[in-house]
């Protein structure tokens, strides 16, 4: 029952996404062909990447403004460093413990790469490797909050921490 629900929500979301892409590419012409192509694309996407978690669309949409604000911050920060004479860089590495499933960990890494001062470099033993531009600036404080947001978007319940 639960699995069917995940399947149908994924079907709905992906039809919305791919249909939207078709409409913006063609400018709302050739809708019959578009319907056919969208259906094929959704089928292929569900086959190649089956849905495993119930994505909550409105939570993902609600997350967008924070993401945009974070990436503007990130760009401004990096631009200030690039133009300042001494650059104030103190690069270092962090390991972030996370129990997000594989796909969601990649999303977290991608998001962190656009937020100020952090850059993900894949994962090792389930830990995300994060490069920070300035180890003193407290960039890593934003990481738990992002991880939590993504967990609620995909309806992932974190394991109890000891």
């Amino acid at each position: 029952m639960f699995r069917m629900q995940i399947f149908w929500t994924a079907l709905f979301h992906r039809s919305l996404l791919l249909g939207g892409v078709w409409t913006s590419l063609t400018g709302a012409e050739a809708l019959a062909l578009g319907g056919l192509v969208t259906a094929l694309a959704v089928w292929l996407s569900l086959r190649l990447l089956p849905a495993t978690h119930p994505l909550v669309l409105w939570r993902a949409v609600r997350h967008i403004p924070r993401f945009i604000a974070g990436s503007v911050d990130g760009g401004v920060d990096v631009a200030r460093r690039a133009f300042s004479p001494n650059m104030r860089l103190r690069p270092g590495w962090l390991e972030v413990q996370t129990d997000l499933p594989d796909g969601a960990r990649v999303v977290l890494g991608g998001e962190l790469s656009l937020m100020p001062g952090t850059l993900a470099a894949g994962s090792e033993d389930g830990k995300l490797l994060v490069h920070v531009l300035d180890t003193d600036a407290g960039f890593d404080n934003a990481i738990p909050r992002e991880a939590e947001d993504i967990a609620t978007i995909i309806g992932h319940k974190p394991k109890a921490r000891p």
Partner: protein
Amino acid sequence: MTLWLHTLAIALLVSLGGALWRVWRGPSQADRMMAAQLIGTGGVAVLMVLAALQDWALLVVAFALATLAALAAVGFVKSESPDGAGDPEEAPPVKKMRGTGQDRAQNG
């Protein structure tokens, strides 16, 4: 407006020239790939500006370039992985990296 958009497109191209310097100097393969990424993004930006100047159909070209730039990077990463065709996370664990960021920052 036309004058500003032309200036903008030229300035963007000049900034891409800086990326070409990085492609030339390297030193690592990843540096060269990053510069190629920058040229991809910059090319998309130039095409957007030209679309406003000349013909909106150029937006489709920008879309295709954005897609191809992403695929180029994926191709590079696959070729860099240990068996030349796989996932970069197959590489041996990266224990040695810790703490080296600091000394490297000094000699820049």
